[in-house]
C-alpha cells in the first residue's frame, strides 16, 4: 500500500510517499529515502519508487519525499538551501517514526541525497543504518562536474545561449541560488565527523578512488562500514549523453542496495 501525502508544516509542506511494510513480511524497520538534486532527481525518480516498493515487500516501511523547493514540495527552486533540506530530512524522520511507531529508522541516500543523509545523521541517536548510494563527497566537486557536463551538453545544442554569469545560477534545468551554492560548497563529508549509526553501507556503481579512500578512513576511526562495488553499464552520473535519460539500475545494483538496507536483520 502506498500513501502519497503532504506533511511537515503548513508554511513549508513537503510531498512524500509512504510505503507501508507488507504485513506478511513486516519487520520493525523503516527507511527514509533522500533523493538526488536537479536532473539526477528526475532521472532516478522511478528507480527510487521501485526501490521503495521492493523494500516494502521485504518488510520495511519506507518514506520517500521531495525537499523544499523541489519536486512536488512547496517552494521555488530559488528558495532552496542545504540547511533547509537537512531540516526536511529531520522532519521526514519524525514523520516516519510517528507513522510507524518505530524508535529508530534508516536513511537511504542517492548522490547528493547520500551526502545530506550523512550530514543529517550527525548528532542523532535514532538512525540505525545509513545506505549511501553513489554518494557525492564534496558539494563543490558536484557543482564543478555538473557545470562541466552542462557546458558540454550546451555545445550539442548550438541554439542555446547561457552566459557565464547565468551558468553559475543554474544547473541543467534547475536553479542554483547563491545561498544554495554556498551550502553545497560547505558540504565535505571527508571533513565531517562520522555519525553514530549502527552500520553504514556504501554502494558504488562507479569507481571513485576518493570515496574509497574516505571509506577506508571511516573504517579506521571505528565505523562499522560495508562497501559494495557493483559496476553499472547504465550509469548516468556526469555523462553528457545521459542528460535527461532515465536511471535504470541493473538488477544486481538494485539488489545490492536492498540487501544493504536489510543487512543482517533476521
Amino acid at each position, binding site marked *: 500500500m502506498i500513501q*502519497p501525502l503532504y506533511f511537515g508544516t503548513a508554511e513549508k509542506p513537503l510531498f512524500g510517499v509512504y510505503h507501508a511494510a507488507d504485513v506478511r513480511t513486516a519487520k520493525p524497520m523503516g527507511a527514509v529515502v533522500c533523493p538526488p538534486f536537479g536532473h539526477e532527481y*528526475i532521472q532516478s525518480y522511478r528507480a527510487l519508487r521501485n526501490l521503495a516498493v521492493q523494500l516494502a515487500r521485504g518488510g520495511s516501511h519506507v518514506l520517500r519525499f521531495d525537499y523544499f523547493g523541489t519536486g512536488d514540495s512547496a517552494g521555488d527552486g530559488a528558495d532552496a538551501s542545504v540547511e533547509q533540506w537537512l531540516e526536511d530530512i529531520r522532519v521526514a524522520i519524525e514523520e516516519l517514526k510517528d507513522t510507524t511507531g518505530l524508535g529508530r529508522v534508516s536513511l537511504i541516500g542517492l548522490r547528493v541525497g547520500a551526502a545530506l543523509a550523512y550530514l543529517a545523521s550527525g548528532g542523532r541517536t535514532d538512525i540505525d543504518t545509513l545506505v549511501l548510494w553513489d554518494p557525492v563527497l564534496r558539494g563543490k566537486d558536484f557543482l564543478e562536474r555538473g557545470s562541466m557536463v552542462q557546458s558540454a551538453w550546451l555545445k550539442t545544442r*548550438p541554439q542555446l545561449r547561457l552566459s557565464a554569469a547565468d551558468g553559475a545560477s543554474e544547473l541543467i534545468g534547475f536553479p542554483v541560488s547563491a545561498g544554495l551554492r554556498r551550502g553545497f560548497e560547505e558540504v565535505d563529508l571527508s571533513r565531517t565527523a562520522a555519525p553514530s549509526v549502527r552500520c553504514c553501507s556504501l554502494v558504488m556503481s562507479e569507481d571513485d578512488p576518493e570515496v574509497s579512500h574516505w571509506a577506508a578512513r571511516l573504517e579506521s576511526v571505528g565505523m562499522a562500514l560495508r562497501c559494495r562495488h557493483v559496476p553499472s553499464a547504465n550509469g548516468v552520473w556526469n555523462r553528457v549523453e545521459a542528460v535527461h535519460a532515465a536511471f535504470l539500475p541493473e538488477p544486481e545494483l538494485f539488489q545490492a542496495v536492498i540487501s544493504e538496507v536489510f543487512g543482517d536483520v533476521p
Partner: protein
Amino acid sequence: MRERVQLFGKPSSLVGVISEPSQVDARERPAVILLNAGVIHRVGPNRLYVQIARAVAEAGFLALRLDGSGRGDSDVRPSTASFAEGDVKEIQDVMTYLAASRGVGTFVLMGICSGAALAFSIACADRRVAGIVGIEPYIYPTLGFHMRYYARRIFRAASWWNTLTGRNALGRRLLGGWRSAGGPLVDAEMAGATVGPQTVPRETVVQALRDLIARNLRLCMLFSGGGAGGVGVCNYRGQFVAAFPGVDFKDCLRVELIRDADHTFTLLSNQRRLLKTIREWMTATFPVETRETPRT
C-alpha cells in the same frame, strides 16, 4: 494557491497533485490537466509541470498534474487495452471524476512531446476538452521545413564533407544511385526530429483538426529550436499551418517558436518565457472573473 494529493482509478493507483486557485470558483473555468512527458513523472522535465500548474492556478484555474499508469508513482495498468487506448480512457475517467467531485465541465490538456500527442488523441475522443497546449507536439515536415533545413547546411563544410563521402542520406543517394536509397530523403538527424506523425496519415489528422476547430477547441502549439545539433521538428512559425493545408484554423490557433530553447526548455530563461506564454494564452483564451468565493 493550495496543493493536495489526489488518487484516481480503481483501485486508486494513479497519483496526482491538484493545484487549487484561491479566489476563483474553479467550476466556471476549464481545469488544466498536465500529461506525462514520456516516462518523466508528473513534475515534468526540469520541474516544468509544477511551475505551469502553479502559474495557471495563480491565474485562477484548477490544475492537475498526474502520473499515468506505469509512470512516476502510479502502478502499471492491469488492462488488455493497447497503450494508446488505455492512456486515453484513463484521462477520460479522470475528467469524469473531476467533473463529479469538482463540478468542472471542460478541460485544457497540456503536455510535452508524447504528452502533447496524447492530449490531441483525448481531444479527438472527448468533447469535454476545450483546449490543448502542446509543447513540442509532433508535426509533419513541409517544403518550407526542408528548404530551411538544407539551407542551414549549405554553408557548413561538414555538411558538404558528409555528402561527398556518403555519410548522409543525400550523399548515399548521389553515390549509390537514386534507386539504391529508397524512401524519403531524410537523414538520421532529421528523422530523429520528425518522428511520430508519419505513422498517422496526414489526411486523418487534417480531418481531426477540422472537427476540433468546428467545435471551437482552442490550440496553443509551442515549439523549440530542437534537440541535438539544433534540429527541431519545426523550424519556422508558419510550419504548423502549412503542414495541414485545407484546415481553416480561424482564430483558434496560436503558434510560438522559441528558437533558442531546446526540447525540454532546459535553460531557466526559456522556462520563464514558456510559463509567461502559457499563462497569457490561458487568461486571454479563457478569461476569468476574479471574485471572492467562500471556500467550501
